[in-house]
């Protein structure tokens, strides 16, 4: 990861080197995790006794679902443990929530490009084809994550269960799932597989976009709120922009529109991956610190953001990548 950071500094290219890390994170997390659960319990399905014992591993995706039930009843609607010692990783819900809050303060929505250990799978898929086969995507799909977020938050409050984890999380297909004890369980697992295949494999291959992140992920929508609180963002320098819309086509999350380019800004769903900055031939897309002039010292803004974001990436993703590599070596060598 230090080599990748060195290459970022040397080539002034952010997206390309970040993607190496991010795809490795996305691919190696399931390797380490699945190996861990198979060794511990022999199946990827979570048995009911593990839930009762509070040993369900807790990731960050259910965090927005827990807020309303916790606010109204002081109850966490997740079968995990609050303090360390319960989950497969040894970390409890408090540790994951603390880590999420700390990283979010630093990078805001940048979480989705530097810390999320699921997004790398579809970013890897999106980078496979040279050209997109599906180019026309209705921009209204961008609102879907907000609808999913609203529906899942309200359902979680009504049913007192993490509704997204129970019914819609595509990444259950590559981590763990509710053990199918009956027809309902089979339907749930079928939904996980179909969503994973469609949103994380097939559509990124066809569109060269991170389709699950852009059009489905409720946590991503929730995280967009924190883009407003982060001090770093990406701007379009109007004095240099032609506009050629190369940035619009390069953005993996459709966070740029012609209107937003005309305003000189990205949409709030921008994950600060740096694709638009790197692709712009006129250096009009720039890293920016809020409150400062857009064209003034964009490299200073880039450096400050990358120091913070890469520090978080090393801290959060470094150990996951190391565990994945160790697992592969352990199993195959």
């Amino acid at each position, binding site marked *: 990861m230090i080599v990748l950071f060195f290459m970022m500094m040397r080539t002034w290219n952010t997206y390309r080197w970040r993607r190496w890390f991010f795809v490795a994170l996305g691919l190696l997390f399931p390797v380490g995790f699945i190996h861990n659960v198979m060794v511990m319990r022999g199946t990827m399905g979570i048995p009911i006794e593990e839930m009762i014992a509070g040993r369900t591993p807790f990731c960050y995706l259910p965090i927005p679902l827990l807020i309303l039930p916790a606010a109204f009843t002081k109850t966490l609607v997740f079968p995990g443990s609050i303090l360390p010692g319960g989950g497969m990783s040894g970390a409890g819900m408090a540790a994951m929530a603390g880590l999420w809050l700390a990283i979010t303060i630093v990078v805001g929505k940048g979480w989705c490009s530097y810390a999320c250990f699921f997004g790398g799978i579809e970013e890897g898929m999106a980078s496979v084809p040279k050209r997109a086969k599906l180019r026309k995507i209705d921009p209204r799909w961008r609102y879907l994550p907000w609808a999913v977020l609203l529906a899942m938050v309200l359902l979680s409050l*009504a049913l007192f269960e993490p509704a997204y984890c129970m019914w819609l999380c595509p990444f259950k297909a590559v981590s763990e799932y509710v053990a199918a004890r009956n027809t309902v369980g089979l339907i749930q697992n079928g939904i996980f597989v179909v969503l994973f295949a469609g949103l994380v494999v097939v559509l990124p291959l066809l569109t060269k976009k991170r389709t699950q992140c852009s059009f489905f992920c409720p946590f991503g929508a929730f995280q967009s709120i924190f883009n407003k609180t982060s*001090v770093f963002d990406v701007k379009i320098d109007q004095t240099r922009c032609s506009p050629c819309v190369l940035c619009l086509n390069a953005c993996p999350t459709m966070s740029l529109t012609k209107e937003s380019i005309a305003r000189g800004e990205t949409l709030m769903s921008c994950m600060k991956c740096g694709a638009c900055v790197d692709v712009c031939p006129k250096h009009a897309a720039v890293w920016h610190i809020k409150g400062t002039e857009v064209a003034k010292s964009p490299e200073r803004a880039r450096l400050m953001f990358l120091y913070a974001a890469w520090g978080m990436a090393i801290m959060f993703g470094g150990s996951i990548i190391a565990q994945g590599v160790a697992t592969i070596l352990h199993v195959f060598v």
Partner: protein
Amino acid sequence: MKPREKLGYTAAGVTVFAALLVPFLLFGVFTKGFAALGLHVDDVYSGGPKARTVQTGAYSIDIHRPVFPHLLQSEKPFVQLDWRPVSALPPYVSDLVDIDGDGQPDIRVSFDVPRDPKTPLRVSVEPLNKRYEAMRNVGKEKFSRLIVRVDDAILVRVPLAHP
């Protein structure tokens, strides 16, 4: 440099400094802060707080408070009973349990205790009080109706017929 710019760069500097502090300070502070909120895991998962313990020879039975699911939850109200330690249990358990503590047995719980912890468990519950539902040869159907082995205990959840 304008005051807004100064503020922006100061905030960016603080953010970079905060990033350095995350593994050493912020992560721990936020984790402890979250843990101190006084939240608890939903009783449908945890089984609710323990009400009392009944000693039965070499083993004991922990009786939990009844758990009443929330409005739209798909579980019935239940009470959880824990037999522990498993090593002290006979090969076949058939106990009369006084759940409400009035001196009268409320249910008879019967199950086999296989030596292999991976062997699926089955339980039968005969209600002696109409407040509790009967269970016949039940495994782990639902959170409110099951028998499972968790660590060194065997947990039985009996649904309430008339909460």
